[in-house]
C-alpha cells in the first residue's frame, strides 16, 4: 500500500468512525435498532453538497447538515415513542422517506463539488498541505475532539441515565422517552456529520452514498469491542473509533490486492458477510466449532511440516 492509499484509508475510516459512534449510541447504548443511519448519512452529504453549491459558507452547510441529522433522529424517535411503532419499522419509515427527501434536496441523484470551497480548502490555501495529507489530519483532530466530548457525555449524569435506559428501563426510572429522543438525535447528528465530511472530502454527494453505513458502523463497533474488551465506556468508545479505521484498512487492502479479485462494488457484500460471521462467533456453539476447525487446520499444518522435514 502506498502512503497515499494509507492516508486515504485512515481518512475514510475516521469519517466512518462518526457513523460507528452513532451506531454505537443507538444500537448498544439505547438498544434501539435504528436503520435511519443509511438515510441520515446521505442526508448529511446531500444537505452539505447542495448548500455549498448554492454558495453558502461550508461551515454553515456543515452545521445545517448536522441539524438535519438531529431532525431525522427525532422523527424516528417520535414514530417509536408517540406512534408506538416497533423500532425497526419506525426507522425504516424514516429511511424510506429520507430517500425521497434527499432527492428533493439535491434535485438530482448526485451533486459534484469539484472546485468548490469546502471546510478542507483552507488547509491547502493557507498551510499548503496537499489534500491527501491535510484532510486526514484535520479529520483526526475533529474526530478526537468529538470522541472526547462524546465520552464525557456518556459519563455524565444524563448520559449515564441514558445508558441505564437502554440497559434496564425499569431500573433507570427516569424519563426514558427523553433519553431516546436525545440519543437518536445525537446518533443521527453524528452520522449526518459523517456524510457531510464524506461529501466534502470526496467532492461529491450521491443518493446511494449512505447505503451500507449501518452495517459498516456495526462492523466497526464489533471490531472495537473485540479489541478493547473493557467495561469502561471510554475505552469502548475509543475502541469503536479504532475499529472503524482498522476496518477501512482491511477493506482497502482487500480491494487493492488483485489476487482476491474484489471490486469496490463488492464492498457491501464483504461487510455483510464479515458482520454475520462476527455475530455468529458470539454463539458458543459456533465459537467451539471455529476453535475445532482452527485446531484441525493447525494439526494439518504441523503434519505437513513434519512430512516435509
Amino acid at each position: 500500500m502506498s502512503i497515499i492509499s494509507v492516508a486515504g484509508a485512515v481518512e475514510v475510516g475516521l469519517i466512518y468512525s462518526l457513523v460507528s459512534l452513532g451506531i454505537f449510541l443507538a444500537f448498544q447504548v439505547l438498544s434501539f435498532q435504528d436503520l435511519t443511519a443509511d438515510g441520515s448519512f446521505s442526508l448529511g452529504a446531500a444537505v452539505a453538497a447542495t448548500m455549498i453549491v448554492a454558495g453558502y459558507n461550508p461551515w454553515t452547510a456543515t452545521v445545517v447538515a448536522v441539524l438535519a441529522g438531529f431532525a431525522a433522529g427525532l422523527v424516528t424517535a417520535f414514530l417509536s415513542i408517540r406512534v408506538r411503532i416497533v423500532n425497526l419499522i419506525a426507522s425504516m419509515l424514516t429511511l424510506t422517506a429520507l430517500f425521497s427527501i434527499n432527492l428533493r434536496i439535491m434535485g438530482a441523484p448526485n451533486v459534484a463539488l469539484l472546485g468548490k470551497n469546502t471546510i478542507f480548502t483552507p488547509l491547502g490555501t493557507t498551510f499548503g498541505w496537499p489534500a491527501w495529507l491535510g484532510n486526514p489530519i484535520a479529520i483526526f483532530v475533529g474526530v478526537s475532539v468529538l470522541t472526547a466530548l462524546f465520552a464525557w457525555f456518556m459519563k455524565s449524569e444524563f448520559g449515564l441515565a441514558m445508558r441505564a435506559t437502554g440497559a434496564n428501563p425499569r431500573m433507570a426510572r427516569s424519563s426514558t422517552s427523553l433519553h431516546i429522543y436525545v440519543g437518536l438525535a445525537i446518533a443521527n447528528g453524528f452520522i449526518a456529520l459523517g456524510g457531510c465530511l464524506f461529501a466534502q472530502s470526496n467532492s461529491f454527494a450521491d443518493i446511494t452514498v449512505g447505503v451500507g453505513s449501518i452495517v459498516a458502523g456495526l462492523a466497526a463497533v464489533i471490531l472495537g469491542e473485540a479489541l478493547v474488551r473493557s467495561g469502561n465506556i471510554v475505552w469502548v468508545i475509543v475502541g469503536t473509533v479504532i475499529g472503524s479505521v482498522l476496518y477501512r484498512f482491511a477493506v482497502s487492502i482487500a480491494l487493492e490486492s488483485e489476487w482476491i479479485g474484489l471490486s469496490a462494488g463488492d464492498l457491501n457484500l464483504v461487510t455483510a458477510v464479515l458482520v454475520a460471521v462476527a455475530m455468529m462467533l458470539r454463539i458458543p456453539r459456533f465459537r467451539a466449532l471455529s476453535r475445532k476447525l482452527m485446531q484441525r487446520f493447525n494439526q494439518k499444518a504441523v503434519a505437513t511440516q513434519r512430512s516435509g522435514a
Partner: protein
Amino acid sequence: MIRLSNVQCTFNRDTVLETRALRDISLSIAAGEFVTVIGSNGAGKSTLLSVMSGEAPVTSGKVEIFDVDVTKLPAHRRASSIARVFQDPLMGTCAGLTIEENMAMAAKRGQLRGAALASNRTLRSLFREELSKLGLGIENRLGELMGMLSGGQRQAVSLIMASLAKSDILLLDEHTSALDPGSAKFVLELTDRIVSEKKLTTLMVTHSMGLALQHGTRTIMLDAGKIIMDLSGAERRSATVEDLLSMFTKIRGKVIDEDALLLA
C-alpha cells in the same frame, strides 16, 4: 404517609384475559411503619407495590403520598420519594454498567441529571464507605461490571443503592426469594438495619409467613386482590404462623394448599 382509597387495578380490561389484580383496596400506612405483605401467588402483592411506585396503572381510586395525589404521576416522577428493590437481582441493577456507575445512577434517583460527570472522587469515597458496610469486599471492586457479582451480592448492592438517595418509602418485592438461605438471611438483616437507620416507611412482600411476623411492625394479607387480614401491635406480637394459617382458613373458608406459605 401512603394512602390508597378504593384502588382498583384491572389488567387487560374488557378482554377475555381481564384480570382484576386489586379490588377496592383502601389502606393507610403511617410514616415509619414497616409493613410485611403476604398472600398466595396472584393475590396482588406485587401489583400493590407497583400501584404505589407508579408502574401499574390504577383503573379507579386514588393513591396519595404525603397527602399529594400521585395517582396519575408516572414512575420516574415519584422516584424522588420511593426506592424499590425487585425479586429478581437482575432487575434492580444494570449488568452492563460498572458497580460505580450503578451506584452513581442510584445516587441521583429522582433528581435532575445534568452534564456534570456522574461520578467523582467525593462520590466514590461515599460509595466505598456505603459498600464496606456489607463486609463483602465489593467496595474494592467499583470498576467491575455489575454482572460479575453473584445474585446475593447484587441484591445486597441493590439495597445499598435503594438507600443512597434520600427517600421516604422503600418497596421490597420478595427481594430475598431468589437467594440461598444464607444470603437471604444476610440481606434481611441488612434490610432491617437500613430501614431503622434511615427511618424508611417500608413495604416488604414475602412468601414466608414466618418472616412476615419476624420483621416489621405490621402485617397485611392479600387474597384475590383484597386485604383479608391486617395485624399490628399486641395482636401481631402474639401471633404465630399457625394463627395466621387458621385465620386465613377461617376468613377465606378454604384450606391453604400452597407449600410456599407453609414451609417457612
